[in-house]
């Protein structure tokens, strides 16, 4: 029986999910509708009784909250995707190895480091953790320009307003007005995980879609978009 499936997904997944959903629809006859917004917004809406059947969050915090409140099926929760952080700069920047003692301050040259909100938005939280891990945070924290989402941080670098920025690998890939300076080693920040779970009102169609997202076809698309697959 064809069903209509309502998915709440973090906005950064739009390109990937928009590419994957038609395949699923063709295969199963179900219809997938995705509402893209910030994870915090979506989580609150689920708390308020939104008719979402599948929630894909850009961080674990909000999924944890929903799980604690019993709003998602714990059993269905999976770590769907992973991502990495990169340091970006102007196109054609010299690539560099990012490690402890990296001379970020010099490279900034008095300019600002563009990041998402370091205490609130996942990309910013991970980035801050990484900089702390690298021992660079104290030096640069006065020079961090925080944006409400990671794409805005990318835009700051793309527009030349900020010389450097820390964004997801998946974001950096498609913007040709920026160049990747280096990848931030994953060991310096907590794992970047996009957890997914079914809500209490999930239909079999939603279950099927969640399964489909873990299929090879889907995962190939995620990889093409710059996401990674979580270990294990």
């Amino acid at each position, binding site marked *: 029986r064809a069903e209509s499936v309502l998915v709440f997904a973090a906005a950064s*997944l739009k390109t990937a999910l928009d590419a994957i959903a038609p395949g699923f629809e063709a295969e199963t006859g179900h219809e997938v509708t*995705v*509402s893209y917004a910030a994870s915090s*917004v979506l989580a*609150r809406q689920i708390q308020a*009784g*939104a008719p979402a059947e599948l929630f894909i969050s850009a961080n674990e915090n909000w999924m944890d909250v929903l799980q604690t409140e019993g709003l998602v099926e714990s059993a269905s929760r999976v770590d769907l995707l992973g991502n990495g952080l990169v340091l970006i700069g102007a196109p054609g920047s010299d690539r560099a190895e990012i490690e402890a003692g990296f001379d970020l301050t010099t490279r900034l040259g008095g300019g600002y480091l563009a990041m998402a909100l370091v205490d609130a938005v996942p990309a910013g939280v991970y980035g801050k953790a990484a900089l702390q891990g690298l021992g660079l945070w104290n030096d640069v924290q006065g020079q961090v320009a925080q944006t409400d989402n990671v*794409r805005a941080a990318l835009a700051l670098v793309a527009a030349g307003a900020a010389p450097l920025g820390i964004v997801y690998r*998946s974001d950096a890939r498609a913007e040709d007005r920026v160049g990747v300076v280096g990848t931030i080693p994953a060991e310096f920040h907590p794992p970047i995980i996009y957890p997914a779970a079914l809500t209490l009102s999930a239909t079999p169609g939603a279950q099927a879609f969640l399964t489909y997202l873990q299929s090879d076809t889907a995962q190939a698309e995620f990889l093409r*978009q710059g996401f990674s697959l979580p270990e294990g």
Partner: protein
Amino acid sequence: MGWLGPAEMEALRLSLRVSFWATLITLPLGVFVAYALARWRFPGRQVLNGLVHLPLILPPVVTGYLLLLTFGIQGPLGKPLSELGIVFAFRWTGAALAAGIMAFPLMVRAIRLSIEAVDPKLEQAGATLGASRLLVFGTVTLPMILPGVIAGAILAFAKAMGEFGATITFVSNIPGQTQTLPSAVYAFLQVPGGEAAATRLVIISIVIAMSALFLSEYVGRRVARRVAGS
């Protein structure tokens, strides 16, 4: 509009519907509140005034969040209303509610200024000729403030077309249900390579809002000219 995908057409249609109804439904209320604020003295007048302005002052996200808490399925207003068959949560009606509330202060301010500019002596003249308060309003005040009402309505419509923060927070971003043009723009801006599509949608917004604006200028001017008699 061959260069708009079906989802985008959908968003455009929805935005127009949402803004249209948001404006239409709030307009009578806006006129009423503006009149009350302009002409009546009653206890709680300042509170009403503050309340009307609240959506302007609050970050839209907060407004949206408050709407979610109040008019959500479990909300203190949302629950009884849904039992009456009036559901806002995650429906286009909710988007219209959010847009209407966000646009309300602009509408009320514009209309109120117009009302304050009407000489009460003309209203008195209407009363001496036998028109009750309500009839005076309908035959004297309202026709005279029409330019202001139109200005207020168009301002509200434009604001509703551009409203995003409260809407997405309240009713999410569900294509075909609650995905308005600005929400679609937002979604495009969140992913690599979405700028082109976003730009397209923004241009459409601009064209529509500007058309509404020019229309309102034209109508407002005709009305004003009639009154001024030049």
